């Protein structure tokens, strides 16, 4: 039917229609045209800071010598002490670069920095339509799929000990969250270094007291 329809037009128009149809089909398959990504490509660094915070007065910090691990039911033991040390070292290096000095006594420090880590398992699912790209897929007809994936999150929280000392929860001065997909094959140490560096890089106001 379609060949009969277009055959009444000149050859070059027919050729254009055929090429156009081929290009159109390619476009159909690429409404969201992106290449696959690796686990490290999922790394996201998010930071927030208290709009009222004056970082020019913050020059010393105290930090616990361990990373607090949080499970679904509360605190859990770390199963990656080497990575914990990597996180703490990366924070120390960046704090030093921004002019902060280490204060052993938290009460004497201008700010307290705490590192936390969590691992989450996500369950997701989807629906792959039948005959996609062949003809219109009838709603409801699809192959159901389910998959799970694990993500790791590192949180760095900076608080003012003077504000947090009266028993009331204090607004954090600064929070950095680093999240990414865990696949067991990529190099987590380098991803942690990159993420912590990026958290400080996009928070240059932390160096106001330098």
């Amino acid at each position: 039917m379609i060949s009969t329809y277009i055959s009444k037009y000149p050859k070059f128009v027919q050729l254009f229609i055929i090429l156009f149809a081929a290009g159109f089909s390619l476009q159909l398959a690429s409404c969201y045209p992106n290449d696959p990504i690796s686990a490290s490509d999922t790394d996201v660094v998010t930071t927030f800071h208290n709009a009222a915070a004056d970082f020019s007065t913050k020059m010393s910090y105290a930090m616990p010598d361990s990373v607090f691990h949080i499970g679904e039911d509360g605190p859990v033991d770390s199963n990656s002490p080497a990575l914990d040390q990597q996180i703490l070292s990366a924070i120390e290096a960046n704090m030093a670069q921004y002019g902060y000095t280490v204060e052993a006594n938290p009460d004497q420090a201008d700010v307290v920095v705490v590192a936390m880590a969590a691992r989450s398992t996500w369950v997701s699912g989807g629906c792959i339509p039948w005959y996609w790209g062949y003809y219109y897929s009838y709603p409801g007809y699809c192959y159901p799929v389910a998959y799970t994936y694990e993500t790791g999150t590192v949180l760095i929280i900076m608080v003012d000990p003077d504000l947090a000392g009266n028993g009331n929860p204090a607004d954090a001065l600064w929070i950095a969250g680093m999240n990414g997909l865990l696949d067991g094959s990529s190099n987590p140490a380098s991803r942690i270094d990159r993420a912590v560096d990026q958290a400080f890089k996009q928070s240059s106001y932390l160096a106001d007291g330098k």
Partner: protein
Amino acid sequence: MMKSKYKKIILLSAFMFLAMSGQGFSQDWISSITYQISFPAGDTKSFTDETSYSGFGLDFRKVVDPYTTAGFSLGWNVFNQRVNKTVELQTKNPGAITGLQDRTLNSFPIMLNVHRYFGRGHDSRFFLGLNAGGYYMLQRFSIGIRTLEDDQWQWGIAPEVGFIAPLSRSSTLIVSGKYNYAFSGESPLGGDINHQYWSIGIGFAWSQY
């Protein structure tokens, strides 16, 4: 859900093209099909700063007099960009987010139009036109394992300039440029966004006048 929506638009477009470019309409209507390359501008450039090579347009113009047509147009333009950069977050407590981002905009303009032609009968002729209607916009912003999607109708206009050059008794080359401007919209990241982009189309029109 989103896919079924744009597939409906595609099917509607295909149906309109087959119906309107049929023998019974060819004496009074000009039907055209164009491949389009689009260049983002304004807020669209901020969202996806990449030239779009995925686009097409269908146009159906009724001949009102030898110098004027009135009709409607449909189209589809896909903008896409993968970028790794920091986005400032305008939240109560200021923030920033960094990561690999896939940003995609599927724009489906659906508009009424009027065109005015300059020149004589079967010569090559320039034309000016105004398209008015709206855009069905599908926006997607993916970062990390998260995806924000938004679909909405945005009113807009698209001034157009172009020319047609006869190639045979029944077919015509058509080249045109449009400035697509959506009046208002909302970004998947929050805040207002006014999508704008230039489109250059080249294709064929079927006319008998």
